[in-house]
């Protein structure tokens, strides 16, 4: 048995040795907000944070997260809440499937950069594919979230 701390809550899991975090989170713990997209860290749908840094959970071993704080889309933070508001204001999602990962990647950006430039946003977000093509809105919403966060 291993203990994973996700969004401040402890979960006991009995994961096969090679199992990536994604499947422990989805299939063993049952938090399905984190999505499977490619399995090879190419699309970002499975993005989560470990101690505040974004990782692709499809390619991160369970052992790498033991004793650390995992944040998933079911969690919250000042950056995530500002982003959610901006996402609402801009009606960002279409199918919504990649948006968990988009929000997590954007949250790390806002956590670490108070004034991201367009280039910063491109760099932070280009690991996340949106097949519906909502990039224009994501970019606009991130800029808006930066301002919203300053107002809090």
């Amino acid at each position, binding site marked *: 048995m291993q203990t994973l701390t996700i969004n401040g809550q402890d979960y006991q899991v009995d994961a096969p040795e090679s199992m990536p975090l994604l499947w422990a989170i989805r299939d063993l713990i049952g938090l399905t907000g984190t999505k499977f997209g490619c399995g090879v860290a190419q699309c970002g749908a499975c993005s989560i944070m470990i101690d505040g840094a974004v990782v692709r959970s499809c390619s991160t071993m369970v052992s790498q997260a033991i004793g650390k704080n995992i944040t998933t889309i079911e969690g919250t933070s000042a950056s995530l809440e500002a982003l959610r508001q901006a996402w609402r204001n801009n009606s960002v999602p279409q*199918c919504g499937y990649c948006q968990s990962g988009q929000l997590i990647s954007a949250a790390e950006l806002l956590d670490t950069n108070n004034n991201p430039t367009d280039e910063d946003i491109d760099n932070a977000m280009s690991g996340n*594919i949106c097949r519906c093509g909502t990039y224009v809105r994501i970019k606009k919403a991130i800029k808006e979230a930066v301002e919203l966060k300053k107002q809090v």
Partner: protein
Amino acid sequence: MEKIEMKRRDFVKVLGLASGGLLFGCNVSADKVVVNTLENGISFVPNLFIQLQKDGKLTIVVARSEMGQGIRTSMASAIAEDLEADWKYVTVQQATGDSKFGNQNTDGSRSIRTLLKPMRKMGAMARTILEQAAAKKWNIPVSNCKAENHFVKNSTTGEEIFFGDLVEEAKTIAIPSDENIILKDKKEFKYIGKKVIRGIDMEDFLHGKANYGLDARLPNMKFASIARSPVTFGSVKSYDTSETVEIDGVEQVVQLDRLIPPAGQFFGMLGGVAVIANNTWSAFQGKNNLNIEWESGLNKTYDSEKFKEKLIGRIQNKSKVVPPFKGNVDKAFENADKVIEATYTMPHLVHAPMEVPNALAWVRDGKCDVWAPVQDPQTVRAEIAHFFGFAIEDITINVMMLGGAFGRKSKSDFVVEAVALSQKINAPVQVVWTREDDIQHSFYHAQNAQYLKGSLDKKGKVTGWLHRVAFPSITSSFKPMSNYIAGFELGMGFTNNPYDIENIQIENAKAESHLRIGWLRSVSNIISGFGINSFVDELAMVSGKDAIDFRLDLLGKDKAPTEKSPHPFNVARLKNVLLEAKKLSKWGRELPEGHGLGVAIHYSFYSYVATVVEVSVKSEKVKVENIYSVLDCGMYVNRDAVINQMEGAAIFGMSITMFGKISTKDGVVEQSNFHDYQMTRMIDAPNIHVHLVDNEEDPTGVGEPGVPPVSAAITNAIFNASGKRVRSLPLSDHGMV
């Protein structure tokens, strides 16, 4: 049509609604829209339902699949509009797959086109009944009662009564006659055509709570991953599971035979070897560890590059002429001042929705329950009945949220797999495709080649137009040996070419299929959109005219629509979107060094689109800087969702143009994941500017029409920027990305 003798309580049960409240039904498929309450006897077959409860909650039963087009929100807002509902009370209930709901096939950009009028009428009827109930309660004339934002107001006293408090009274009101059901005036709209509306699923999206197919869970469910023949329609010769059963979590390995659909319908399944595990990861690992010897079969020689050359060869020669015929192209070419010709090619494409194909099935006690992201749940239900022998009423298709679809999730082979496995292992099982499975075993958009020949007279006017096209038809997936393009495919831009040219000939050359061929967002409009818009640009360049002026001339004079169609083609609307795009893009403006503008227009799914693209070309590398798209889809419901669709279509079209390529060698698809089947990413995303034409026309398609013009607008812009004419896609083949 099935005869309905259900009582109100049966409907409530079947629809999964709460008991109590006021239930309305509407029949959409009849020529005349029939609306009624379902309180007493039901004298018609309803297929669209809403329920108003005493606490004011308004539930709309949505029978179309949500795949990012926002249909759950749009349908709800269309009904809320004429009902004068307050949006905060509105919820939706997703319908299961059942012919009771009429056509549920979420495909062809048709939901709002076919449902807007009946939805509005049902809303208006409910509003009328609530106003009459208030009048009865207050004992005043109904003319003094006006519904507004979930209340009925007494216009004399200013007194208000809540919709929920009228539910019981409303049940005693006679059904208003058609002439008393009056739709709201456009000027009074609060939801339809407006920008801001809270998406029904927004909070779920933002918190990871939306339930996609892949999120379906049952106690003790199993997870399955299936190895399928690398060559299409190959079969298992032998397999060794020794390294699979060692994997922690793997429970068993099951062989699945291919299920071949009967001619003309259904999708069947490819068959293969399935690994059953207690989690998805172990199933994937177990599949990777299988040692399988395949019998590849007839498609093993399929080499897509060689096939491309074969198609190019075929279209250089006279092929099967298809109607309509117009004039005499040979004469036109003989008498021309200039004749030009060009050949264009595009490879196979795959949908690659972010959520891979998947389905959870549970077969037990002679019943079959499915939870899956499907675009066409009734076909899935019928297909399961056909292959597995269940009575149709014993099959329940729970339609989950679709994490993208683009046509892939119309083809329900993944559901058939899940049902077959559940039946074999006697447990609930979720089949999960890997991304590699998705890229390598799809129903592909067809590889294609087009040859165009055109003639110009001395004034630069187009006198003749010959268009030869070859691609494997979608019908080949339903009827083997279908080697020619079907009429419905040719009708997507080829035979309904919008240009006013005296002599036109369309020809179709043979193309065999060696992969499963299917439809992908906007289907063969992608092909015609690229070929025709590229060639018109080439003609314009030869004639020395401005690309937009040339197109306006070529479209000819405005004419009264003559087509026999619910939405006859109107050339004036196509010219209008082109002029609007000219304005929006500031066509003709001075451009920075290395930049170019390109234009394309396309009419599809009854909607009119013009797209202008600005690219920059530096050291042979193309960057798309701006996309300007204008859409005339008639009346639209959710303005912001429509704009979002057009933005998404621009990105989708960009992905096709820049990277989109599925190729095969020895019958095997060469791409496998997003590293070699690339998508447009944030870093490549241009600025996108969308303009919607406002008019009173009937609503037409939105989800697909934005895609077809994008490719040619990009390549035309490249020509404008660099003088290089790209006639074969994708750009990555030319080292341009």
